[in-house]
């Protein structure tokens, strides 16, 4: 055991003198976004009504790996659970129900295909649809992407729910994709056309990076998925956006 202790003293010394300058403070103090980036750009009348009249809000989180919480150290850090906790805290007396239907790796066609089943088995007032990233890194034809998105929202709205689209994440794998901004713009276009909310994850995360936050702070080492901090922060900012739409003027 003596030898073991010696080894550990050496280890500790290495940490003290050898650790790089930045320590990834996972502190939420770094979690921020400009107010205009948090504007969803559309009211959420059905969700609002449900909160006001029934003191109840059912949310369906539909998406791929971000929604499923791939690679986070605790599933509770994934943005849907953060949203649920944030709303529960901010809206006392309102019963918030969140159904997480994120499936890692799915593209928009697979999600649109299960839209009816997911909605009918859960009947939400609000759907968060996180998509775009897999389409961009797999170079899905842009018009297919846009028409699938439009059809999916039309179907979902006809079943009686508000929509909030969450667009691409700003991470090395997406930044390296050729037309990522075209997918982002397509989502903005469809959201405007169909009166759906748009949570501008891409611009929010881009502003982190432009403000000097290194990728290691918010991205996993695979260069694609959000890490604990990224997920928690996106969840908290999404909570702010949705609260503003639910309780604002």
């Amino acid at each position, binding site marked *: *055991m003596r030898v073991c202790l010696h080894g550990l003293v050496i*280890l500790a010394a290495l940490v003290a003198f050898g*650790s790089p300058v930045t320590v990834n403070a996972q502190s939420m103090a770094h979690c921020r976004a400009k107010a205009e980036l948090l504007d969803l750009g559309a009211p959420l009348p059905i969700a609002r009504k449900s909160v006001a009249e029934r003191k109840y809000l059912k949310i369906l989180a539909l998406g791929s790996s971000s929604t499923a919480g791939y690679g986070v*150290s*605790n599933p509770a850090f994934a943005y849907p659970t953060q949203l649920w906790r944030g709303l529960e805290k901010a809206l006392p007396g309102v019963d918030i129900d969140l159904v997480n239907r994120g499936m890692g790796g799915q593209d928009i066609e697979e999600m649109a295909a299960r839209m009816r089943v997911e909605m009918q088995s859960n009947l939400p007032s609000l759907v968060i649809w996180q998509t775009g990233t897999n389409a961009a890194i797999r170079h899905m034809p842009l018009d297919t992407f846009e028409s699938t998105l439009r059809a999916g929202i039309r179907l979902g709205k006809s079943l009686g729910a508000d929509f909030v689209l969450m667009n691409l994440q700003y991470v*090395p794998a997406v930044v390296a994709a050729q037309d990522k901004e075209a997918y982002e713009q397509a989502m903005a276009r469809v959201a405007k056309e169909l009166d759906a909310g748009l949570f501008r994850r891409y611009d929010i995360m881009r502003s982190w990076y432009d403000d000097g936050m290194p990728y*290691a702070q918010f991205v996993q080492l695979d260069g694609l998925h959000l890490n604990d901090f990224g997920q928690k922060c996106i969840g908290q900012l999404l909570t702010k956006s949705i609260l503003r739409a639910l309780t604002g003027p």
Partner: protein
Amino acid sequence: MANASSGRDIRLDLFRGLALWFIFLDHIPTNVMSWLTVRNYGFSDATEIFVFISGYTAVIAYSRMMQRDGWIRASSRIYRRVWQLYVAHILLFVAFSAQVAWVSIARDTPALIEEMELLGFGDNPYQAILEAALLRFRPVNLDVLPLYIVLLAAFPFVLPAVVRWPLGVIAVSVGLYAATCHFNWNLAAYPDGKVWFFNPMAWQVVFHVGAACAVLGPRLAWLDRFRWPLTALAVVYLLFALFIALSWQYNPLQRQVPMWINKLLYPIDKTNIDILRFTHFLAIAWLVRVAIPQSASILKWAIWGPLRRCGEQSLLIFCLGTFLALSGQVTVSHFEDSIVSQVVVSITGILIMCLAAYIAAWFKDGGPSSSAGIPRAAGALT
């Protein structure tokens, strides 16, 4: 097979011990001590080391048994080991859940919900238990043992082939890996829509290349005629990976990386072990082989004792490390991620792992009842 008879290769235990320490340190989410592990300096991490050495030692442990006692005997020994791994995994699952439950009960409500999420029991705890028994449901960080169980369960069918045609096995294994990545194959997990975090059909390539290297043994010396070019290549590649890894920490460096390189690099998939990760590991392994030969006197230094002991008792130490990493996570978050708590938790955890390894070795040597001391069996390698 000469490798198996030419005495125990200390490097295997030593680096497996190191990998186990790394896995423990990396499994504490906010841990400044994880700067000591490989993962922040390139593409690969301790998982590759652990899986590669597991494949290597599987050949050493079972190939001679197969020659001596036949295939059936060796296979039943492998399945006995698979059973031990399974039992260990289930025990770890129970211990892990119990720890979460204990923390939840001791804490306030929001924390309780968070911890229950960590367990992932969700709406249907009974089904979750069933799925855990089927290895389809694994709470965070319990992904490595199921991978190892699947790889070892297939090993009786690989073993006769790999001792005869190691290069053929490498070819088939790489073929399966390529097909898996191309067709996006994986095994289903629980809840619905989830897949295995460590895809066995992709990660088998690390295990089987390790197994083939053990068979090739001295024949790998053939590579020494390219010693310098290979070494130079490995160094250049590791420096490149280091540069990329540092670019994740410093945006000015990130902006130096040309876009076409980023396009080639990302994403660096872990589930299907991206080729960048695997080649990064192979480059490290090559440099270790060049720098530290099996006979190197540095390997005999007493200071490596704790690492070797941990490497020898790999199953126990792996399970203990996973359990302690959860305790560490809870402790560190209790102290609001303070750096001191991270360092103290890391050192305490490694001390406990060392202590357990020494106690286990003491039991294996005969324990309290034997004064003569029974020499340890070499078959206890895997």
